[in-house]
């Protein structure tokens, strides 16, 4: 079971942000992606989540082709992304943020709302219960009914993780989950990730904090200038001469 990224290319004007990226990420695993700024890491997430269209290449999740699916359909297929600069529905409360992301709601249409009110109420109960669990799991209870725009940077990262969890994903794409987060909260987020992983949820994580990342993931890939330079166990990858050249500027 895996996310297969097959020869994906994406250009913005004359700039090839992704240049034939080939990567296989096991859906139940923890997988790191590192690389210098502009290497194409976030663009890769955008293309994989359907946010941006690839110029070439195919993407499959557990054998199912995602190429023709819209972003919401990809999310509902079990793969969600978060953002480098955390995003939230800032005027909605933390609770509403999570509830909005729950899939398969009968009350998503006016017809469902008016003609199946009993079912809508039942589902709302179940969703509210899942949201409560998620809020407790992420330790966001204290701010559950506050507008999410008022959260701290770290809390917003947790909220993003929560919103991703609401769609019951198999794979979550985390874009720099530790950036701008205080060290205590970094530990907290790492713990949550590890625990979710033991429940079978996979993570692909873009991160600049190499130290934190290598503690977390057994496998990582290095990207540079739109290409994957190397892939494997952290130490082996970091010792790769190509990687040292590109990423660490050849410093030994």
């Amino acid at each position, binding site marked *: 079971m895996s996310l297969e990224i097959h020869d994906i290319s994406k250009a913005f004007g004359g700039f090839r942000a992704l240049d034939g990226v080939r990567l296989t990420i096991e859906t139940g695993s923890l997988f790191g992606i590192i690389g210098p700024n502009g290497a194409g890491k976030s663009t890769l997430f955008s293309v994989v989540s359907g*946010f941006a269209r690839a110029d070439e290449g195919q993407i499959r999740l557990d054998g199912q082709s995602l190429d023709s699916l819209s972003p*919401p359909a990809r999310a509902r297929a079990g793969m969600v992304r978060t953002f480098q600069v955390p995003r939230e529905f*800032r005027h909605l409360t933390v609770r509403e943020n999570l509830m*909005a992301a729950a899939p398969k709601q009968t*009350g998503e*249409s006016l017809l469902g709302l008016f003609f199946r009110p009993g079912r809508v109420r039942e589902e709302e109960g179940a969703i509210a219960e899942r949201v409560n669990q998620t809020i407790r799991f992420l330790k966001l209870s204290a701010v559950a009914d506050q507008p999410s725009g008022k959260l701290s940077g770290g809390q917003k990262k947790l909220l993003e993780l929560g919103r991703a969890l*609401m769609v019951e994903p198999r794979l979550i794409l985390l874009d720099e989950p530790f950036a701008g987060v205080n060290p205590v909260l970094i530990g907290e987020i790492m713990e949550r990730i590890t625990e979710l992983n033991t429940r079978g949820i996979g993570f692909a994580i873009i991160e600049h904090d190499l130290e934190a990342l290598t503690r977390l993931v057994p496998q990582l890939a290095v990207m540079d200038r739109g290409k994957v330079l190397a892939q494997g166990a952290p130490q082996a990858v970091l010792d790769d001469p190509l990687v040292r050249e590109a990423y660490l500027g050849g410093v030994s």
Partner: protein
Amino acid sequence: MFYAQLLVNGLVQGLVIGLAALSITLVFGIARFPNAATGDFMTFGAYAALSAHKATGSIAMGGLAAIIATGVISLLAYLAVFRRLAERSVVALLVASIGIAFFIRAVLGVAFGHSQQVFQVPLSRPYVFGSVRITPLDLQLAAVALAALALVFAILYLTPIGRQMRAVADNRDLARVSGIRPDRVMIALWLLAGSVAGVAGMMLGIKTIVTPEFGWEMLLPAFTAAILGGIGSPVGAVVAGLLLGVVQEVSTPFVGFTYKIALAFIIMLAVLLVRPRGLFGRLEGAR
């Protein structure tokens, strides 16, 4: 006490403006463009109500017809035109909505003629409170408007689709990657925006006379209220609508009937110059 009477008249008028402004602000907040067809959605609602009222003699049936027919015509406008232009500029959508406005007006002109029509509602004795007279009809209309408002706000703030509508208004891209399907949200939006405009049109039709142009003439006050209330803010639109209705009525003795429309224009300019995010506004919602 003369002014108390004007205040009451203004509140009823204000509910009409508020409903129209709510329709505009919902569309602006979620679909992100000023819908110039809102006035003609109102006209459509008025004719739908008029026809149903003539056929059945029931104001309630008229209201139901206005809600359903205008909701449907609004949804059709979305499916046929606005959806296809969704990725285009605001200007393209605005111009398209002006086109739809003219189209609806022309069709109504052909179907119903250009002569003035009125709802044949029985005259009834007004309730008198001191020197203020309120007709039962005004009370009924106010009740209908308040019920419509209550329903819209309940949908927006208490239901799954309302939550998703607010999520899309807040951050459309995030909504999409979170698995929220914008198509569903848009369908609900256009049905709601149309129905609300339809109710406003029926109310205005009962209060005044129905012609194919009468909704278009309400567009300026409705936009003013939407801007005054803070574009994208449903509560703001309604409050500003009431405020504008009252100000227009109370100012009539000073500026004269002819110029009360101009007042809306002056208020709109003043708000845009002095406080562009309006009373309840959040400008970032209106990119």
